[in-house]
């Protein structure tokens, strides 16, 4: 993603610990005022990336630039306290010996301190809590204080390290929506690290998907979900249905290509940078919700149904014996054992055939 108004620029960054590269050739450009989620499984290096940006880790090559200041390079590291960044760690990390007000005002100078503290307490919905001790706060309140504390000095860049991971699920979704809106109101540029794909897709303007110390894909949430760069990204950000297919050269309707697979001849787009030729064997990826029950299409028998209220994942066995899953809206659910006909809503994505993949598969995620 080449944006002209890049605010944070990370160029060819490498961080190693001993002989192991924890981060390798990281390139990332964060537009000013946007919320970027760094999404990856645990151990992919996303927290290391955040700590390197914060200046809590030295980098071994490459550079980190905010605005026109080079903050980290192989030869020099600007100290964390001189970077003007806000940091919200996973466990809130409030200073236990200071009150809520003392925590929020920790990084502020004397002048105008109390007014700013009161203002921030109000912004995060904790007006009147200034004299409380951190031990008297709930988990959600503690995270709000940590957020206010980081916002207090009007940082150039906010760094959020899985700030909602320790909260219970109900509170988590409520608080993260609220926090995302608050950060947008403050016109902050924000980097959010998370391993939760729903969190990343629902909150962020852009998502960087990381794996093994590298960025696999950078794009809008819709880009990442609907046009994943590879099958791993596809499986990591959501459920997939994978089939083997044969590429047909002729173009389908509306500029899409066609592929022959166990669902018949369906419309398909090649993954970015992939240019197959007629007759090539390709791997076809669909999302379960791209399948629908239809009057005309492929015959299938309904297998196990995982009911989730609003919809259900329905296991389907094709005549060929292949198994796949479709997400069907709850009111239309067929019964187990029923014979149905399925069709595809929109073009699938074609990836290069990977060795060892045979037949139809259901990607379990990472």
């Amino acid at each position, binding site marked *: 993603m080449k944006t002209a108004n890049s605010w944070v620029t990370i160029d060819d960054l490498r961080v190693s*610990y001993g002989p192991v590269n924890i981060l390798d050739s990281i390139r990332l450009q964060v537009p000013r005022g946007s919320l970027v989620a760094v999404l990856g499984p645990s151990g992919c290096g996303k927290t290391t990336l955040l700590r390197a940006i914060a200046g809590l880790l030295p980098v071994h090559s490459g550079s980190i630039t905010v605005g026109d200041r080079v903050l980290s390079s192989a030869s020099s590291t600007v100290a964390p306290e001189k970077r003007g960044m806000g940091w919200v760690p996973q466990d809130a990390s409030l200073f236990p010996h200071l009150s809520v007000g003392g925590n929020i005002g920790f990084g502020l100078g004397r002048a105008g301190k109390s007014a700013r503290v009161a203002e921030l307490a109000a912004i995060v919905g904790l007006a009147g809590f200034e004299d409380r001790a951190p031990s008297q706060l709930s988990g959600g309140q503690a995270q709000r204080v940590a957020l206010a504390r980081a916002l207090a000095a009007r940082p150039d860049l906010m760094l959020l390290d899985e700030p909602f991971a320790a909260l219970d699920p109900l509170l988590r979704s409520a608080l993260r929506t609220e926090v995302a809106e608050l950060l947008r109101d403050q016109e902050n540029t924000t980097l959010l690290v998370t391993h939760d794909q729903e969190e990343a897709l629902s909150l962020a303007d852009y998502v960087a998907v990381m794996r093994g110390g590298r960025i696999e894909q950078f794009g809008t949430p819709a880009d990442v979900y609907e046009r994943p760069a590879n099958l791993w990204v596809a499986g990591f950000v959501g459920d997939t249905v994978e089939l083997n297919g044969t590429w047909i050269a002729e173009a389908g309707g509306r500029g899409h290509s066609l592929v022959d697979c166990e669902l018949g001849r369906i419309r398909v787009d090649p993954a970015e940078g992939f240019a197959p030729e007629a007759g090539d064997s390709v791997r076809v990826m669909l999302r379960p919700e791209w399948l629908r029950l239809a009057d005309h299409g492929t015959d299938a028998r309904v297998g196990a149904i995982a009911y989730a209220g609003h919809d259900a994942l329905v296991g389907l066995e094709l005549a060929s014996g292949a198994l796949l899953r479709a997400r069907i809206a709850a009111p239309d659910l067929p019964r187990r054992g029923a014979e149905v006909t399925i069709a595809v809503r929109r073009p699938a994505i074609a990836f290069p055939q990977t060795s060892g993949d045979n037949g139809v598969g259901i990607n379990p995620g990472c």
Partner: protein
Amino acid sequence: MSVSLQPAVSTGHRRDSRPRPFGAPAWLLVLAALAASAATIPLVYLVVRSLDAGLTELAATLLRPRVLQLTLNSIVLAAAVTATTLLLGIVSAWVLTRVRMPATRFWLLICALPLAVPSYLAAYGWLVWFPTLNGFWPSWFVLSMVCTPYVTLPVAAALRGASGDLEAVARTLGRGPFGAFRAATWPQVRPAAIAGALLVCLYSLSDFGLVSMLRFQTLTWGINSAYGSSFNRNQAALLALVLVVLAVAVVVGERHNRGRVGNASPGRSRVPLRRPGLKLLPFALLLLITPVSGVLVPMGGLLSRLLDAATIRSIDMPRLLESIGSTLALALGGALLAVLLALPIAALAARYRGRLVAAIEAVGFLGHALPGIVVGLSLVFFALAVVPALYQSVVVLVFAYAVLFMPKAIGTMRGGIEAVPGSLVDVSRMLGLSPLKTWWKVTRPLALPAVGIGALLVAISIMKELPATLLLRPTGVSTLATELWSRTTALEFGAAAPYAAALVLLAAVPAVILSGIRGLAKESA
């Protein structure tokens, strides 16, 4: 040794275990290395001094029957006391944690009490009742009574932490109650028992006051008497070297046998407590053995002498006050120096990892394994040879205290600094505070209680210290411990009583209170 137990089994749990690829700052490494190297002076100088005597004299001295006898006595006493305390301590710990007793806290407290009583004070108390006590058996008995808590307390803690699930599983797989304990729980408790045994063994090897009062001739006694007959200082040095070799052998052996317990998924369930009913009595009697013999009988003897009309009439008040004053002043000076030396080592060990850091910390703990009399003797030689102006001055004595008790300060302060999460430090840096300011505004206020407790522990230990004080005190200066010792060895039990009482009030009582506070803090944490 004091009431607090250094957790020889590392239970340290770092909340932020991420690697910190910024290495330790050079200035901190240098400071810590300097502080640690101060702790090596006694050992290094002892070796140098012994080798000075020449290898032939070394061999000849070592093979003298007298030296062999002293060595054998030390080994037999240490082995007997260690075995006794292991047996009694493990059984006591089992009763404390597995039998439903009324007033659990009370039993735990009285089982810890003997730790607060220095061995020579217990020996004095027994001598008051039975002035003819002498030799191996009384030494073995009184020392065992005083040392048992070193095993009881860590083993009880380990038993309380041990998962009941494993034992229950072993029972369902066909083991009997004892078999299940042995197969499932003992491996979880073993490291604590061995660590406790190490402390007991070191304590017994390095004990001087008790064996000299009960006239059982061990290496420490031999060192003191060889030093006293001032023409034979080479022999004192060689005996000290033998003692150090024994102590090092014990420490190495413990490291070898400690074993490791993986923290395999700690189960939540507890072993159901036994309701003893009428069988309560033997359990209670068992628990009472050590507090009665280690505390009650000696304190009774002390009180009976103290309240004796003849004693009260003959108290030399100015002299008593003077030794109280010098005891307190020495304790304060020693504690300050120990904390000062320990601070960089503790700060380094709490925040950084690596071979160099581990080595510096291990050297700082050297005083833990060195008997007081060895440190005293070695510093006498060192002062005479290197800084004669300071010989027989308070400076050398305070330095000896710092070397001996630095491990206590390192242990508590390291724990206190480590308990300040690294993420708080990171957050403070991100909010614009420099490392130094962060230390002042975040780490210091949070770690201060631990520093205070470390200093207090050191001060209490110094007040109870005897052998190094005897060797290094300036002429005319006497502490409560030295007065008690010299009067008791002269069989003046009445004259010794006020000093013993003052020592109990100044050192033993604060030790009990402190351990109570720490115990409570640990339980509520």
